[in-house]
């Protein structure tokens, strides 16, 4: 059985094999003991981990050694059907810089029309008494500032629209 999975912004072509799991073409030996529905001890290539499982709408939240991964997964067949039927969303000439967490906008560092390079600060958001500078991950031109100081933003809310360089900057994060 083949699957498409997404975790931490990465895409994985996954397949259940006899001895384990194939991820992006690499075979891993995987062995598991289910201690309950939400707790599994899993050995991957001879190293073993306790994993805690919480069901999400289209996948699972998996906790491993202190990290939480939201993994969305679907059968490859289902996906190709859905892709043929669906529309292509989220395309266009703009990249959007989104809030990585909810918080309060304390300063906007970028200016409309400004050229920014990778690592340049764009917006400062305060949360949990810390100021967090949201930076550009690639270069481009500021094409729209969507928030101002004092705004309360949710996670993934758009902060800045950026028109990337011709070289194809990645989405800022």
């Amino acid at each position, binding site marked *: 059985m083949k699957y498409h999975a997404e975790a931490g912004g990465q895409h994985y072509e996954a397949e259940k094999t006899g001895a384990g799991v194939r991820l992006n073409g690499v075979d891993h030996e995987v062995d598991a003991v289910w201690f*309950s529905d939400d707790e599994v001890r899993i050995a991957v290539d001879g190293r*073993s981990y306790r994993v805690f499982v919480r069901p999400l709408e289209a996948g*699972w939240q998996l906790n491993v050694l202190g990290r939480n991964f939201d993994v969305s997964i679907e059968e490859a067949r289902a996906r190709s059907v859905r892709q043929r039927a669906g529309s292509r969303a989220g395309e266009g000439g703009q990249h959007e810089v989104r809030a990585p967490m909810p918080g309060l906008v304390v300063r906007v560092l970028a200016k409309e029309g400004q050229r920014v390079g990778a690592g340049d600060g764009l917006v400062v958001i305060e949360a*949990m008494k810390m100021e967090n500078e949201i930076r550009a991950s690639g270069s481009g031109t500021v094409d729209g500032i969507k928030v101002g100081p004092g705004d309360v933003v949710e996670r993934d809310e758009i902060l800045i629209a950026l028109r990337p360089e011709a070289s194809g900057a990645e989405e800022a994060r």
Partner: protein
Amino acid sequence: MTLHEARRLRRVLIANRGEIAVRLVRGCREEGLQTVAVHSDADALAPHVMLADAAARIGAAPSAESYLSVEKLIAAAKRTGADAVHPGYGFLAENADFARAVEEAGLVFIGPPAGAIETMGDKTKARAAMIAAGVPVIPGTGAVSSVSEAAEGAARIGYPVMLKAVAGGGGKGMHVAENRSELEALFERAAKEARTAFGDERVFVERFLHDPRHIEIQLLSDGERTVHLGERDCSIQRRHQKLIEEAPAAAIDDDLRRSMGEIAVRAAEAVGYSGAGTVEFMVEGGEFFFLEMNTRLQVEHPVTECVTGVDLVREQLRIAAGRPLLDGRDPPQPRGHAIECRINAEDPVSGFLPSAGPIHHLEIPSGPGIRWDGGIRPGFDVGLHYDSLLGKLIVHAPDRSSAVRRMRGALESLVIVGPETTIPFHLAVMEEEDYRANDISIRYVDDHPELLKRAAGELPEVAVSAAVLLAARARRPDRGAGTRRRGDFQRAGPGLPAWVTAGGVWR
């Protein structure tokens, strides 16, 4: 406070939230005191509210409208019949006006006199008071107006030195000079930068410490007697936020330890201190320099409790009730080694960005020498209004290397399904060679950027592998809840095949 004037406390209002409020509720109860929790609207269902004997709503979620409101806290104390107020740490704990308002309302403030808070809370006053008391401070000049004046100061202080903007702060506008020619080359630039950044071109010269440790002394004073309970090494910090603390500081010898303890006692006595407090020092090469005094219980107080057997909250409460500290006994010698890891709702893999949301599942480690001081419960929604500290994981073991191994095991058993936390960072530190060798300084986190990569590691692939198994399982309902595939354990016969633990345990 009149010294040793016994007064009976009955009901203590805890003017705080989170893990310290939980700690204080427990500590008061053990001393036979009732507790009143206060809570903002965001904390109506928080653990400290659940545990206290009574609870009072004090306002909306923002701190300014609740935990920082002197009037609301005093009103809540009056309304609930409290006769004392414990401020915890943070919020109003080092606010002299709050201490005064509490006393003026006829309540006992469980902390030092307002005057001591005031002196130590003002950097300039504190430095002057410490110099007067013979407490070593980092050598420095006043504002210097010329290269030659700067060089003169530097010669007196000794190189390396730092040129700092008088109006500066937070690490900006600082330049390090290793010798006179470097100083001369930097002076104009430093002055210019200071003018640009702060509108004030004045700079001063201060001794530069290459890679100092942050070591602090725990004090207790009942107004008659001031004693120290040894030191803590809090060098593992990020942006001046402590992340890991230990006791004792294995890096200093007994002479230095004794000397720092005596000086710290002198510092406290110089400001008429009473209660629990901490004097922080920078330590480098056998020298130590006063940094500041925290006039309250510290976040990291548990490591001292572990190695001394002294309950600092109990001492605070007894001192506030006019009883002599430590029942009049001498402070005990430290035994074993304790480490505390701060578990913050921050994602170390993404530059320690704050992370919020509900706690879906919580599993607290247990067993010998493991302590959890927590402020969360399953279902509790971690918000963004307050600081990110979810709890503290503390271990105590016979020696430092055992403590490090114990902490690793405890971190592996601490499960927080929900927001991202600093657990992966701490796991990486516990396996890092310099940390294990106790070769650390306040620059440790900056010096070890690979830690955060290590915290990332192969775990995404483990998670995806688990998800693939879950997806395959979901297709076969006969392999449902709690079932176990036979042969999973010892598939390959003798030896320990797939099942030999390696994940973070054996390498």
